[in-house]
């Protein structure tokens, strides 16, 4: 029976070619989008699931509030992991990750020395690979990080330094001290691994004094801690809540000393409305469900994007199904006779419905074949666009193909169900008399056309707004001029000669100014806790404040064109070792009426009091995803905490920096032979922060274009059908003297009216949705009115073109021919 249905359906597909093409093309594009989006979503959902016992592993997060500064971060103080394991039997083990600053790595090979600057070296506890089962190609996960001087590298790194030589047992020299490390393990290539934390090289955390130095501290939040629950504890759904309820007491006991040391007795700290809470986050939730949780080492996506893409996929397939429904019902006239005869011969309605469903399913199956082929062809392009590494064979993994079959069935069902109901409802007598015409269902068909265009126009408006918003945050004033700024890394390796090098650069004719600082925009900053001086007179509101800070030289403010609002900047004529320059946000949060001359104490250091000498206009340290935070500049002559890193930032004049770069590199080589010259342009670093936004926006733009295309395909088919149906009318009108323009107008007006209605319906929907989306940005646009005009006009224009192609064709046909046909 099914074979019979398919056979008839196949003949119908061949018979109505234009329709079939429209249906199959629409469905194929729709299914291609859905499969690609599906693969994308599947990839996003698979993050960190490959780890052995991934359901037992959690990241320890901190939810902190200190004064006006509240944060939620994927970091912990160094001793938190050990304290958790010690206090709670449910927690079996812990491991920590610390990300040191970029440093040089050297290998001595037969061809001489190979030196590279490595930015992705992570320092970890010895059990790291035991707890997190990254795929090791060589080496023993339980022992390879035990020795202090060991290193585990990825395949790529091994190849970079040692070529084809077996890397195990080879020596790498780390940092400017050239500390020898023995390679004890080799990891598989991690590029395509769906892991939130990726790295090029691992070394034991013992190599980094900072971590050991701050082992007393419960406020130094620079390590990420992962814990593993016991098998039994992980199975109990109440474990998490039970554990987390006990954490505050544990923190109180453990952290009291540390808080005393920074001048904040913990009881008092809590009484002031602050908190310092640890939480456990399932490993597999980190990628998509981290929300506001900050982490610089993990690749965090956003589940919201998946919802948006899922919705887009659903709508695109719906558009294709609507095309099918519309064309099938519009063409009902052509099927009348067949339906009538079948009914006369005793076919029950259910069998006719099965016939039409089978037909829809056959269309979908053919479309699915094309879709799979398209996916195969488009995947490389899609990967480069989305930044993913999805393989075609992924379709056959993880039960995706089962979902795909389900999708085909569902699509066939969605497309065929209404035509099945509609066509099978005809009364046999009426049908045989030819009394049924396709116009009968015009209302529903018009409704569906409006529906399609509403979806398409909402997507167009949204895409426009996404692009405008991204442009806006990329071009917004950062508080400094980001153009023509070159950042040179690793300048701390120049040690005492750093300032000579800086002076030499500043003296170059193409250079306006150069400055040295412990960090620079986009490179992160050191945050700590400070106590502003309060007394009756100065109206300080905040008793304590968290300040991000750099240590800078006297040229920093002038090189970066930061604006001083009050007081002065650092100046060689003064001793500024106990001076501090605040940004507006910090001054405002503290609340001083007149900040200049006020004092701030740094309990994290040696309780020094710093005097505020100036206030600068706010500027953005990071991309405009983040809002401006209270910030301070210390002089590099101060005794404040030095992160040990240094950058030289050069403001240059020339538009073409190539020549400048090579001469700077030559100068660098004279000062520093061991460390490769490494630089970046500030503008590029900033843009990197928007890359994933742009990727998403581009994908979104492509899916939007496709949805418009599918909607227009349907419109094209409907107009073709109408023109055909009205052939006789058009012929008579032409005989009576109508010209082409009048006929085109006759055929187009109704459809264009529908598109216009869609514009009116779509605009408020898009406005509401995009307003919601914009809420996530710290800096956002007001939705401009003209996007609605642009989207509306372009939808109309595309519709007019689509409709006109068919209408003109019908209008210029010879009327004698069409009349003779009757």
């Amino acid at each position, binding site marked *: *029976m099914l074979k*019979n249905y398919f056979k*008839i359906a196949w*003949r*119908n597909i061949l*018979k109505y070619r234009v329709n079939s093409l429209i249906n199959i093309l629409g469905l194929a594009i729709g299914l291609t989008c859905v499969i690609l989006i599906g693969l994308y979503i599947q990839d996003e959902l698979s993050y960190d699931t490959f780890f052995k016992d991934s359901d037992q592993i959690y990241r320890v997060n901190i939810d902190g509030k200190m004064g006006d500064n509240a944060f939620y971060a994927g970091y912990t103080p160094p001793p938190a992991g050990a304290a958790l394991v010690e206090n709670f039997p449910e927690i079996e083990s812990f491991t920590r990750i610390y990300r040191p600053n970029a440093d040089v790595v050297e290998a001595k090979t037969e061809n001489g020395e190979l030196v590279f600057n490595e930015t992705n070296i992570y320092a970890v506890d010895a059990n790291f690979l035991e707890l997190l089962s990254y795929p090791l190609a060589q080496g023993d996960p339980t022992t390879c990080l035990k020795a202090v001087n060991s290193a585990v590298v990825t395949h790529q790194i091994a190849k970079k330094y040692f070529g084809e030589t077996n890397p195990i047992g080879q020596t790498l020299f780390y940092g400017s001290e050239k500390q020898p490390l023995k390679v004890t393990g080799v990891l598989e290539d991690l590029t395509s691994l769906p892991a939130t934390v990726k790295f090029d090289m691992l070394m034991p955390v013992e190599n980094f004094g900072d971590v050991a130095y701050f082992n007393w501290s419960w406020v130094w939040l620079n390590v990420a801690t992962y814990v593993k629950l016991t098998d039994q504890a992980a199975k109990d759904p109440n474990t998490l809540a039970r554990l987390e309820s006990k954490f505050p007491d544990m923190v109180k006991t453990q952290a009291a000393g540390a808080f005393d040391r920074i001048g904040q007795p913990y009881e008092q700290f809590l009484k002031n409305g602050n908190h310092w809470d640890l939480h456990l986050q399932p490993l597999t939730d980190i990628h998509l469900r981290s929300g506001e949780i900050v982490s610089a080492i993990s690749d965090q996506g956003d589940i919201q994007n998946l919802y948006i893409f899922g919705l887009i996929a659903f709508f695109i397939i719906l558009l294709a199904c609507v095309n099918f429904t519309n064309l099938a019902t519009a063409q009902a006239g052509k099927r009348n*006779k*067949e339906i*009538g*005869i*079948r*009914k*006369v*011969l*005793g*076919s*029950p*309605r259910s*069998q006719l419905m099965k016939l039409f469903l089978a037909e829809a399913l056959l269309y979908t199956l053919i479309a699915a074949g094309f879709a799979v082929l398209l996916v195969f062809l488009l995947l490389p392009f899609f990967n480069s666009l989305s930044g993913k590494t999805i393989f075609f064979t992924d379709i056959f993994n993880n039960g995706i193909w089962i979902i795909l079959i389900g999708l085909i069935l569902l699509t066939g069902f969605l497309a065929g169900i209404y035509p099945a109901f509609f066509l099978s409802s005809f009364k*046999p*007598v009426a049908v*045989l008399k030819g009394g049924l015409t396709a116009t009968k269902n015009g209302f529903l068909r018009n409704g569906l056309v409006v529906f399609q265009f509403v979806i398409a126009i909402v997507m167009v408006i949204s895409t426009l707004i996404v692009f405008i918003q991204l442009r806006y945050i990329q071009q917004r004033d950062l508080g400094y001029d980001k153009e023509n700024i070159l950042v040179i890394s690793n300048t701390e390796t120049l040690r005492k000669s750093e300032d000579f090098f800086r002076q030499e650069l500043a003296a170059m004719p193409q250079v306006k100014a150069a400055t040295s600082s412990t960090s620079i925009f986009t490179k992160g900053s050191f945050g700590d806790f400070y106590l502003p001086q309060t007394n009756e007179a100065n109206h300080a509101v905040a008793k304590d404040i968290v300040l991000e800070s750099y240590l800078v030289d006297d040229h920093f403010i002038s090189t970066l064109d930061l604006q001083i609002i009050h007081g002065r900047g650092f100046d060689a004529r003064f001793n500024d070792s106990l001076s501090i320059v605040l940004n507006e946000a910090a001054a405002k949060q503290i609340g001083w009426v007149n900040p200049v001359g006020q004092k701030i104490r740094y309990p994290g250091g040696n309780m020094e009091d710093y005097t505020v000498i100036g206030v600068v206009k706010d500027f953005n340290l990071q991309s405009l995803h983040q809002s401006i935070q209270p910030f301070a500049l210390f002089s590099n002559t101060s005794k404040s905490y030095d992160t040990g890193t240094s950058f030289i930032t050069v403001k240059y004049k020339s538009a073409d920096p190539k020549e400048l770069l090579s001469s700077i590199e030559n100068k660098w080589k004279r000062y520093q032979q061991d460390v490769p010259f490494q630089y970046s342009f500030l503008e590029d670093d900033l843009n990197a922060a928007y890359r994933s936004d742009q990727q998403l926006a581009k994908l979104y733009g492509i899916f939007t274009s496709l949805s418009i295309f599918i909607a227009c395909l349907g419109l094209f088919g409907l107009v073709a059908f109408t023109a055909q149906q009205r052939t006789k009318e058009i012929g008579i009108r032409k005989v009576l003297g109508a010209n082409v323009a009048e006929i085109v107008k006759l055929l187009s007006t109704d459809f264009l009216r529908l598109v216009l209605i869609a514009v009116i319906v779509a605009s408020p929907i898009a406005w509401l949705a995009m307003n919601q989306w914009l809420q996530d940005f710290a800096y956002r646009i007001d939705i401009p009115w003209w996007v609605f005009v642009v989207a509306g006009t372009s939808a109309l224009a595309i519709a007019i073109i689509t409709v006109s192609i068919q209408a003109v064709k019908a209008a210029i046909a010879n009327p004698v021919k069409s009349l003779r046909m009757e």
Partner: protein
Amino acid sequence: MIKIKDLEKYYATEDVKTIALNKLSFEVKEGEFVAVMGPSGCGKSTLLNILGLLDDPDGGSFLFNGTEVAGYNERKRANLRKHNLGFVFQSFNLIDELTVFENVELPLIYTGVKPAERKQRVEEVLEKMGIMHRRKHFPQQLSGGQQQRVAVARAVVNHPKLILADEPTGNLDSSNGNDVMDLLTELNSAGTTIIMVTHSEHDAKYSHRIIRMLDGQKVTENILSEFTH
């Protein structure tokens, strides 16, 4: 086999009510061949639709094999139809997308006959109608006479008790028309009841009895040959 009494059917538009059948009564016995004649608009087609269980009367009684079928719903009518009735139309009404074989096979599919038996029965009837050699062709590839043979084959393949023919020769030339009438007579002599609507006095002569209609009523009855069981 068929007994209708005071059968009524109206077609109503917003302001005009047209009476298609006005208290029509007659009886058809099993094995009879009855021709229905009358001018256009006299209600012949309406009558045939009701007899063919394609339409429902607005009043009166319709006994089919002693069972009252007036007021049956579409599902019940379809069921009765596929087991008992065969149709032959003026315009053949073959499904263009199906081959000759498949067109004839269709009623068997709807009555749930197994594929092997279907094949055998369809071939049997095609053989009988002399169109076996055309079984893989599509309707458009056949002449009118051949198409009507296929239609007749389709009408009889299920061994219906009653064949309803609506101007079966209307679209055929006289030689093809005579062939079809011979076929129907042959079926009738084998025991099938036939009710045929026609404009052609020539065709009507093949029947036992002619019912003449005007304005939805029976006006005369000509008995052409005595029909006995």
